[in-house]
Every structure is written in structure tokens, then in C-alpha cells.
């Protein structure tokens, strides 16, 4: 039997109350370690690039976080964003509809992909893993068919489509409007999840769906809304992606599904639902990017970056299991 007041137990309780502390300290520690390995890591150009690079993944991870909070998972994240991206680029470049309308159309397609996932999960009662494994292939093939495998280049697009790639200078740092949009999305979803009744219902549904139902929460409707909102966010991520890459291609975002899950898990959100926060996911996405950048700057083979990511995921889940054991 362990004493309640051992340092370990106290740490466990603290992490239990503030789940974002874990990823935040990993982020700080890794930044310090990589800047010791190579001082250039900390210069403003590198840090700016790092944040620019993380925008798309972090945005996708917001939607992923919301779904994982409901004890679900979304494997179709990347495919949905690619489909939305192709719709935005093609309708604007080939069908010549106004750019704003094209973006709205793409976001609507993102919403539809979420709605279909949500419908299959809540009405047909299929497990989210299976549903999104299926729709991963479905959305990928629709995207390929729709675009005929053709890429659309920035030169053919209206300005508004690549607006998310515009630079915004803050002191010595150079961000993009896409980064700002990503940060705004984090703020909005964080507010919705922590300060509104809907957010409480999302947590409660993921925590114990039966208890939530008995408390009078319409859990099916909550789940459907989460998949729908996540779909909208994936649509917006597609817009950020076009601005960042400058080309709409079905070859973009090849690792987005697993990377987004990695960011969420490293960010301290429990795969069992009901625990976590989008703030942690922001740290999680940054950690992934910091490792990528730091390891290459340290002159280490990039395969170690993949290795490190794998270890981080396992450590994060193990930590989550340990934290969840908190009992009085």
C-alpha cells in the first residue's frame, strides 16, 4: 500500500486535475534539449517555420480530439480533408465559381463527410473505428475520382484560396494567416468544450454514455453534432492546407490520420473518452513537429524521429492509464 501523500501520488493527482501539464512539460523539455543539441533550433526562422508547418496537422487534430473525447476515433480525417481540398480547388479553378463560395462548398463537403460518419455511428450503431475505416477508403476514392488524379496549382486559384498562406509578422516571428485561423479554432472549440452545456455533454457522453442518457442527455444527438463539427473543421483544415502547400493534390496529407491521433494522444486526451482537452492537443501537435525539426537539426537520421514519435505515443497512453487509476 502506498501512502496517499507520496510525491508519486501527489504528482498523479495533479496530472489528473490538469491533464495539459504533462504534454506542456514534455514540450518545454524537448525544446530545451533540441536547442542544446543545436542552438539554431531556437532561432526565429526555425521556430516560425515549425509553427507554420504544424497548422494543418493541429487543425485536423482539433476535430480528432472532439471525436476521441466521445470515446470514438476517426480514421477518415485525412481523406475527408483531401476531398474538401479538391472540391475547393476544382470548383474555383475549373468551374470558375467565386473563391469564397468554393471554400464554403468545400467546408460543406467536410461537414457532409462528418455527418455520414456520425449517422453510421449513431443511427446504424456501428463502431466508429469500423465506420471511419470504411469511409477512409470511400472518401479517398471519391476524391481521386472527382479530381481525376489532377493537381490544381496556386496560379490557377483565386487569391482567397491561398490567403491562408499569407505571412503575418509578429516581432521576429513570421506566422501565416493559416496559423492564426488554427489558433482561433483552438480558442473557439476550447471555449465550446469547457464553457457550454454542449461541451459538458460531449465529455459526459464519452465518459459514460449510459449515465449521460439517464441524466437526460440526448447522446445520439451529441455524437452526431461532434462528427458534424469535426467535419467542418476538416473542411477548414483543407483551406489552410491549400495556402500552406500552394497546390491541391490527392498526394497531400498521406500520414494525417495517424499523425492526428498521435497528436491527440500525446496531448493527454484519453482514447477511452471523457478525459482530455484541445489545449493538450495543441501541445501534442507541437511536440510532434518539434521532434521532427529538432532531430533533423541535430543531424540525426530522420528515422529516429519516427522512432521517438512511437515511443512518445506509448509513454503517453501508459501515463494516461496511470493517471486514470487515481482513487481516494
Amino acid at each position, binding site marked *: 500500500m502506498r501512502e496517499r501523500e507520496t510525491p508519486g501520488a501527489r504528482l498523479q*493527482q495533479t496530472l*489528473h*486535475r490538469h491533464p495539459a501539464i504533462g504534454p506542456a512539460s514534455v514540450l518545454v523539455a524537448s525544446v530545451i534539449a533540441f536547442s542544446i543539441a543545436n542552438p539554431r533550433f531556437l532561432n526565429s526562422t526555425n521556430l516560425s517555420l515549425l509553427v507554420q508547418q504544424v497548422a494543418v496537422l493541429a487543425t485536423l487534430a482539433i476535430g480528432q480530439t472532439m471525436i476521441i473525447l466521445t470515446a470514438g476515433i476517426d480514421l477518415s480525417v485525412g481523406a475527408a480533408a483531401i476531398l474538401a481540398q479538391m472540391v475547393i480547388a476544382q470548383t474555383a479553378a475549373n468551374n470558375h465559381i467565386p473563391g469564397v463560395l468554393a471554400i464554403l462548398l468545400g467546408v460543406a463537403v467536410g461537414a457532409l463527410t462528418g455527418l455520414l460518419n456520425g449517422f453510421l455511428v449513431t443511427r446504424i450503431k456501428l463502431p466508429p473505428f469500423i465506420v471511419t475505416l470504411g469511409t477512409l477508403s470511400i472518401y479517398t476514392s471519391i476524391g481521386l475520382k472527382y479530381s481525376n488524379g489532377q493537381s490544381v496549382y496556386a496560379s490557377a486559384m483565386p487569391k482567397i484560396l491561398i490567403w491562408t498562406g499569407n505571412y503575418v509578422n509578429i516581432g521576429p516571428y513570421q506566422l501565416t494567416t493559416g496559423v492564426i485561423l488554427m489558433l482561433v479554432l483552438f480558442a473557439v472549440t476550447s*471555449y465550446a468544450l469547457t*464553457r*457550454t*452545456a*454542449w461541451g*459538458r*455533454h460531449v*465529455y*459526459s457522453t464519452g*465518459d*459514460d454514455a*449510459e*449515465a*449521460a*442518457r*439517464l*441524466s*437526460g*442527455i440526448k447522446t445520439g444527438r451529441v455524437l452526431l453534432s461532434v462528427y458534424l463539427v469535426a467535419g467542418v473543421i476538416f473542411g477548414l483544415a483543407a483551406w489552410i492546407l491549400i495556402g500552406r502547400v500552394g497546390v491541391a493534390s490527392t498526394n497531400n496529407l498521406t500520414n494525417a490520420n495517424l499523425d492526428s491521433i498521435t497528436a491527440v494522444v500525446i496531448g493527454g486526451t484519453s482514447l477511452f473518452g*471523457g*478525459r482530455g482537452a484541445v489545449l493538450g492537443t495543441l501541445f501534442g501537435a507541437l511536440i510532434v513537429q518539434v521532434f521532427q525539426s529538432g532531430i533533423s537539426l541535430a543531424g540525426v537520421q530522420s528515422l529516429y524521429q519516427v522512432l521517438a514519435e512511437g515511443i512518445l505515443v506509448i509513454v503517453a497512453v501508459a501515463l494516461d492509464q496511470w493517471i486514470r487509476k*487515481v*482513487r*481516494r
Partner: protein
Amino acid sequence: MSTDVNAASVNEERSATPAMSGTPTLEARHLVKTFGHVVGLADVSLKLYPGEVLAIIGDNGAGKSTLIKCLSGALAPDQGEILVDGVKVVFKSPVDARLAGIETVFQNLAVSPALDIASNLYLGRERRSKGPAGRIFRMLDTRGMRESAREQLSDLGIGTIQDITQKVETLSGGQRQAVAVARAAAFGSKVVILDEPTAALGVRESGQVLGLVKRLRDRGMPVILISHNMPQVFEVADRIHIQRLGRCAGVITPGSHTMEEAVAIMTGATTLDQAAGTGRGAAQGDGPDDKHGRNGQNDPE
């Protein structure tokens, strides 16, 4: 637990003695529920009056759970009707029952472990803050809900919980139960149904929950208590409804019968008529003018 407590010692304990007359807060008439060939309920009636604790006891398979599920909307009876304040109601779901003022604390405690106490008390009926923040941005009145939650808990004498922002999963079993009961009793509910509230608790914690039941009753809230624990039932109940083989084997009071007699009726070793030797006869069905054979002196604290 004496059996010879009689009318004389009763009423000064609780001046607000339930009248046991007039309109029952909750009434079930001739409920029948079958599952294929298995008869869950065979013509069971029940009345619950304002300000009383009605215990339901019975062996496994006697129909206790089925009865409670019908009253709380989790099951729809095949026949019979349910009345709340004399008005017939039909529950299609537990939510319907809640809207009608019937709150049930299920055995598996419908609380969200990862949410804090205040959030759990207000789960499903959150309050928004006043002004544009609440109207437009749907902001929750977190502070207000925490304050009222603290008041509600201390009203019910649950003083052991200091931090209302504690997550429910960090609470002890008794405290969790207290949170669940406090939630059931709040928000203008009319009836609180507790399904085996002390089954997983230790002696001290059970005492706290029973104290809570008494305080609810003293505030005029009628309580239905399902329990296996005879000493606890005889401690808090005003009347005891005995289920046996899907039927009501009788309604007794702690004053009219002993625990041994209650168990005998419950197991079929004797019948209500044979057991009614102790004098005043049992309150068959529902005794509107029955006195409470309860001395109420073992309220903890």
C-alpha cells in the same frame, strides 16, 4: 429495532407526519409485466404518500427491479396505469419520468466520473450565465452553479465534501452516492427512488446515506427505497411493501411486524395474515390512517 413501538411515541418525533390520505404523490395500479413466459409483475399496486419512506423488499426475482423500472420509465408495463398526483401518466423513457418529477438513483449511479461535483449535479440541466455571454455565446454560469451545488449539498447535510470542483471519480462510494441522491432530490422533483443505495457501502457510509434519506423525508419528499438490508429498512421506512413472486405479498410497517416476520413473508414461510399476530394488523395495501411504528431515534448526528 423494537417491534412494540406504538402510536404514543410516534408523532412528536415528526410533527409533519404524512397524512397518508388524500392523493398519493405516486400511485401504480394493477401493473402487469411479462417477459415471454416469465411473469415479472402480476397485478401489483402501490401508493406513495407525501413525506413518507416506502421500502420495497423482496427476494431475487420477486419483481422489485421490474416494479422500479416501470415506475422510473425504464420499462413500459403491459397492463395497469401509473398516476402522479392523481393524474395518469405514460412514461416512454426515463426522461419522461424525470420530467414528471420522478427521479431514480440507479444502482450503477448515473454520474459522470470525469466531471466535477457541480457539473454532475447540473448535468443535463445546465444554467447559462445572464446577459449576452449566456444568450449569444451560451456561456455556462459556472460560478453560480457551483454556489448552488454547495448550498444543496450542505442543505442535505453532506458536509464531508469540501471541494465542489472535485471530480466525482475521486470521491468515496458514499460521497458519490450522496451526490447522486442530492441531484435526484434537487430541481423540484416529487419522488426520489433509490435502488439499493447502500449495497456497495461500508457501515459508516451507509449510515450517512440513511441519514440523507431521512432528511429528504423530513423535507416532505417521498422516497421509495429498494433494499436487501432489513435493519436499514426497519430503521428508515414508514411502510414496507413486500414483493414475492411478482406479487405484492403485503404492506407492513416496522411497528406492526418484526424483521423476522418480514423475512418470513418475503420468503413465503408465512403469509401476511398468519404473521399479523403482533396486534394492530398490517396495513394491507395502503393504510391511509396507519401510524408509524418508527421511533426515529437512531438518526446519525
